[in-house]
């Protein structure tokens, strides 16, 4: 039996307020193998750590048990302390006396026996602890950024500026994302393109950035420092080395389809660049709609292209590359509003989503910058904005507040007033949320300077009346039902995750919340990390956010990524699975369930009745294994063990917990 030392932490009153520390210490002294038991007010303090280190030496301890907060908080601290005293750091066990005990109990009469049981379990496990050694792994000095919106662009630039190579993957033919679709940005009314396009150009010109547009991530395997990623770069049907970006091809193309960039309001050609400032300025052929690909005839673009850059035979390119870190910045979608029949969206051309309305202001938009009614092409005299469409709606929409709508609605009302000063603007809001630098002032300017009329209330129905739209609503402050004859109705649609976000989360083994926004590792202290080491998140794929926040988060995520890339070696997980080949039947169920691709078949030789036989067994690659334990659950012969959490150790814990009080 190894010599075990037990240290109980008071955590101020966090543990000591509910758990009788003295009783726990006294009980611990009687546990098998325990040669020392003590307590301290704050074990995580330097003095507390010194107590552990000194006692290890003085009492010749071989195993250490601490009864403290959750191992997620301070396991690392105590492992280091133990290692500094010369013990293997994996000879430490943590009994969680705070989150699992004192914080969830009120009565010391209940909490104290539970604390004693938890310590007894940890002691039982500790007596079976074996020293473990982590591998030191290489770090591939290359980063992958997924998503070329403002967050992805900023992150890619920051990582590239630190001297590391970055591959920036964007699904669309151009980078720019949602911000490229905006006319102006709040609260400064900067022209969005004017501040975005210099960054887009910088990406294109940066020697450390490798831009992969019209491309998607198809598979991710590996682990922090060594992610193996397969990227499909879709065929543009254009040879980028020949294309000069002259634009004759899309001028001449005879086929038109609704433009995704203009939110389906305008049309684009089938060979196209999404918008004039696109980066790269190389068109793509939308093969689904191209007359040649559909019917085998046309090829007008090929005939007209002076650079002979059109290549109908071009194939998708598969790129397989290794990355040290991955940064996800896939952004958001505007919620589909077809479920809101009372607003007439999709039924009347003058009912628009906010992102559609934004496109009307843009010089290269569907109306060439004219703010007009799409029904008759005339400028509107009265515009009604409705906020919280889909947001804060637990019945038909999203429970959360989309955060940006109060501000972009005020912005659009101001833009409208700038363009058409005589036009009336009404905004139906439920609550005005203008927290942010200069935001409240901006909203007040809309109301006071521009004469935008804010109505606190909702709209029940929008329906055509003659040429106009009748908006039936209520002003809840005055308690008056209102009827407004409007020419345009603009709906502030909720921000939702990209439709393919769940798929991407699965590919990368990262967590999502109930809405499919990617989850950060800790809501306060690890806001840009995910639970998967080496994968970071930035921008609106994590939660709705505005441009300054997305940019700040991108910078933070880039800094975290660079911190990893700058390391020569990374320590791997020491608690990894191990196969006993003598017991393994080679069924390879473990291989099928392993989320990290860490298990593979191998051959083993054994002598049966004097004959040398070769058979298949499973083998764990300790560099890939993350110690999740799925394989141990699946193994039918019990031949896979998770080191540090062996069956014997777990059962010893259970036995200890089941002992009579």
């Amino acid at each position, binding site marked *: 039996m190894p010599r075990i030392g037990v240290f109980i932490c008071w955590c101020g009153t966090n543990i000591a307020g509910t758990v009788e520390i003295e009783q726990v210490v006294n009980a611990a002294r009687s546990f098998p193998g325990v040669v020392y038991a003590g307590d301290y007010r704050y074990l995580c303090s330097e003095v507390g750590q010194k107590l552990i280190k000194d006692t290890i030496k003085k009492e010749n301890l071989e195993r250490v048990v601490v009864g403290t907060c959750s191992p997620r908080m301070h396991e690392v601290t105590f492992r280091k302390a133990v290692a500094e005293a010369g013990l293997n750091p994996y000879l430490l066990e943590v009994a969680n006396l705070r989150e699992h005990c004192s914080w969830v109990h009120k009565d010391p009469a209940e909490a104290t026996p539970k604390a004693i049981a938890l310590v007894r379990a940890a002691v039982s496990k500790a007596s079976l602890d074996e020293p473990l050694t982590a591998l030191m792994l290489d770090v591939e000095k290359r980063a992958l950024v997924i998503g070329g919106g403002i967050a992805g662009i900023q992150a890619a630039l920051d990582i590239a500026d630190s001297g590391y190579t970055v591959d920036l993957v964007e699904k669309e033919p151009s980078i720019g994302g949602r911000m490229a679709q905006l006319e102006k940005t709040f609260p400064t009314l900067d022209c969005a393109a004017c501040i975005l396009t210099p960054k887009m150009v910088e990406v294109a010109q940066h020697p450390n950035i490798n831009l992969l547009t019209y491309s998607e991530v198809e598979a991710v395997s590996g682990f922090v420092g060594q992610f193996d990623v397969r990227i499909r770069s879709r065929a543009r049907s254009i040879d980028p080395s020949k294309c000069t970006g002259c634009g004759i091809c899309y001028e001449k193309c005879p086929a038109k389809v609704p433009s995704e960039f203009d939110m389906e309001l305008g049309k684009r050609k089938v060979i196209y660049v999404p918008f004039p400032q696109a980066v790269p300025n190389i068109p793509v052929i939308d093969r689904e709609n191209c007359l040649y690909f559909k019917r085998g005839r046309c090829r007008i673009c090929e005939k007209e292209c002076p650079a002979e850059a059109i290549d109908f035979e071009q194939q998708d390119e598969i790129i397989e590359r290794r990355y040290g870190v991955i940064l996800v910045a896939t952004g958001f979608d505007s919620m589909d509003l077809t479920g809101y029949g009372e607003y007439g969206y999709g039924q009347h051309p003058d009912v628009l989503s906010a992102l559609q309305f934004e496109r009307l202001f843009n010089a290269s938009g569907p109306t060439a910058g004219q703010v007009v009614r799409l029904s008759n092409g005339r400028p509107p005299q009265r515009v009604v904005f409705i906020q*919280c469409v889909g947001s*804060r709606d*637990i*019945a038909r929409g999203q429970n959360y507040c989309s955060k940006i709508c109060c501000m972009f609605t005020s912005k659009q009302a101001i833009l409208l007033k700038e363009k058409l000063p005589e036009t009336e603007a009404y905004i139906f809001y439920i609550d005005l949320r203008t927290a942010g630098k200069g935001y409240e002032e901006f909203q007040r300017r809309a109301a006071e300077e521009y004469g935008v009329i804010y109505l606190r209330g*909702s709209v*029940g129905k929008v329906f055509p009346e003659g040429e106009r739209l009748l908006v039936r609503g*209520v002003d*809840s402050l005055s*308690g008056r039902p209102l009827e407004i004859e409007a020419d345009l109705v603009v709906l502030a649609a909720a921000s939702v995750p990209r439709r393919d976000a769940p798929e991407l989360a699965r590919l990368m083994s990262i967590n999502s919340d109930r809405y499919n926004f990617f989850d950060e590792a800790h809501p306060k202290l690890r806001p840009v990390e995910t639970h998967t080491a080496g994968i970071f998140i930035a921008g609106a794929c994590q939660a709705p956010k505005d441009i300054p926040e997305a940019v700040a988060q991108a910078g933070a995520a880039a800094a975290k990524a660079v911190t990893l890339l700058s390391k020569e070696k990374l320590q791997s997980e020491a608690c990894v699975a191990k196969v006993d080949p003598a017991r393994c039947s080679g069924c390879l169920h473990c291989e099928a369930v392993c989320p990290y691709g860490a298990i593979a078949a191998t051959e083993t030789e054994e002598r049966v009745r004097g004959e040398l036989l070769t058979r298949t067994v499973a083998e764990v690659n300790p560099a890939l294994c993350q110690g999740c334990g799925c394989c141990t659950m699946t193994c039918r012969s019990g031949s896979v063990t998770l080191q540090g959490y062996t069956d014997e150790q777990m059962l010893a814990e259970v036995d200890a917990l089941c002992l009579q009080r």
Partner: protein
Amino acid sequence: MIFSESYHRFIDELKKNTGQDPNQCYQCAKCSAGCPVVAAMDLLPHQVIRYLQLGLLGELEESRTPWICASCFTCAARCPRDLDLARLMEGVRLAVLRLREGNRLSPADLELTPEQLEKLPAQALVSSFRKYAK
């Protein structure tokens, strides 16, 4: 005035009778915006909920609104808080009737389980409570 003991008793009763919690409402007033009979009401539908939140029961007793409500359920269909105001209105009517006349028959007299009670149309119950003496 508000949040008295009688308020809490009333609200608990209302929640039990209707299965709706007025505090779930954030006063967007979409119910009032879409109500087809709002023109005849003295209190707007969202104001009824606000009065419930504030415990202004006396005012509700005086209001025409709960009796104007046609239970068309437009409000319930559109409420972003998934609150069924038509049911709440029914709850208010029931409470007012009890305040005025008391019950001649109590729900307990029916010897039904809460699950069975829930399935019965509330209006039918109210009228039978009033009609039939013990």
